[in-house]
């Protein structure tokens, strides 16, 4: 169970998140949609403190962090309870595909090299990248890089996986393989919070869709209800423009 309450983020005079409340059940897959610049990515980045929220609390399991007085130790604990998939992949450029997956297992989780390697082998098989284990990111296609990025997050067995527009930077030809992999992650009942513009994908895999506008949650519900019968005029307007 993950509980986000009153999460607020300001950049200068600009309020990007105006008090977000969101409960996420274990195994739940939530997709966040909404116009550009509306705070969707900032919400994700505030959950693991890549951007430091100004106020609000984030609770994951036994860990509860008050943004206003979060300690360094709490922030690390929060980051270790979550896994993040970046829009621009953000693979470690000095590490091979396999090392990208094992790095945090060894350095952060304190696993032995053989333990981490075994997990990496498994993840590389699941992501279809076994033959690319020794390749550096620069030698991989965008789609392959993002699959490594997802694999790196999968290996952490995090309580919550955060996806920040994982297909937005991809050439169209690679979008399919990345969405396929995300579908398989979703089937494993991994708890996921996904920001995406892929509406068809959201409809397929989401347990719940959240529509955000101007730093607030406007409306949320099961995909069928939200997509086919949106209640708020802003949701209707947005869906008309994107579909």
């Amino acid at each position, binding site marked *: 169970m993950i509980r986000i309450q009153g999460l607020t983020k300001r950049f200068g005079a600009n309020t990007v998140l105006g008090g977000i409340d969101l409960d996420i059940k274990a195994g739940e897959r939530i997709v966040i949609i909404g116009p550009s610049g509306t705070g969707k990515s900032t919400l994700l980045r505030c959950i693991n403190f890549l951007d430091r929220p100004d106020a609000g609390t984030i609770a994951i399991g036994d860990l509860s962090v008050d943004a206003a007085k979060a300690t360094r130790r709490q922030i690390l604990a929060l980051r270790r309870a979550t896994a993040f998939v970046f829009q621009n992949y953000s693979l*470690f450029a000095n590490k091979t595909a396999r090392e990208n997956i094992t790095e945090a297992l060894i350095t952060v989780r304190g696993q032995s090299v053989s333990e981490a390697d075994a997990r990496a082998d498994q993840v590389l098989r699941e992501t279809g990248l076994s033959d690319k284990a020794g390749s550096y990111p620069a030698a991989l296609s965008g789609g392959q890089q993002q699959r490594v990025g997802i694999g790196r997050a999968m290996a952490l067995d995090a309580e919550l996986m955060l996806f920040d527009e994982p297909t937005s930077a991809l050439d169209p030809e690679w979008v399919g393989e990345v969405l396929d992999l995300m579908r398989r992650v979703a089937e494993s009942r991994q708890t996921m919070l996904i920001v995406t513009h892929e509406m068809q994908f959201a409809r397929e895999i989401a347990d719940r869709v959240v529509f955000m506008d101007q730093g607030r949650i406007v409306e949320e519900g099961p995909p069928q209800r939200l997509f086919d019968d949106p209640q708020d005029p802003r949701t209707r307007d947005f869906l008309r423009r994107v579909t």
Partner: protein
Amino acid sequence: MRALDLDYMLGLVPVLLGYVPLTLAMALAAMVLALILASLLAVERVIRVPVLDSAVVLFISFFRGTPLLVQLFLFYYGLPQVLAFLTQINGVTAAIMGLTLHFSAYMAESIRAAITGVDRSQWEAAEAVGMTRGQMMRRIILPQAARIAAPTLVNYFIDMIKGTSLAFTLGVTEMMGATQKEAAGSFLYFEAFLVVAILYWIIVEALSFGQRRLETRLNRAFAR
């Protein structure tokens, strides 16, 4: 104009070669120490620890702002008059200390620039998996900064090898000191200094070859 005394020059080569190990040892010791010190200074400059930061800025400013020769004299001839325990210091140690402090100031600045040159995505990815700042620096940022800084750092090493010649002003008989003595005995200054110049040149050229190998290795991860 008189002819070069080639026999004298050839005879001098083995004599001076005997001092190459000392020259290289001084440069290598100073380089290793300077790299460690410079990395610490650079990391501090990036994360900016209050108070300490001002001290680091002052340190870098002083050691970049004054000549190496002046610093060597200050350590070897000056400091022992103020700090009694330094009277035991020998010329080689003083030279290594001076080279370390002097070059660490320069190297700190290029390492700092290299650290800030590492793409933002690398910092965020390291943070996102829950690395501490130390882990992030050691495992992700510094290895990538090393690649960016490598060409300049090798240049400093080359400069350092040549800088060891100043140790002769502290009474150390290294390559330069030995040449000086030889020349004073034979009065063949031109021959003697030409030989030592060529020896320094050969050492630096060998190093430049190593530099190209190193850069290829560091670029391995970035080749398409």
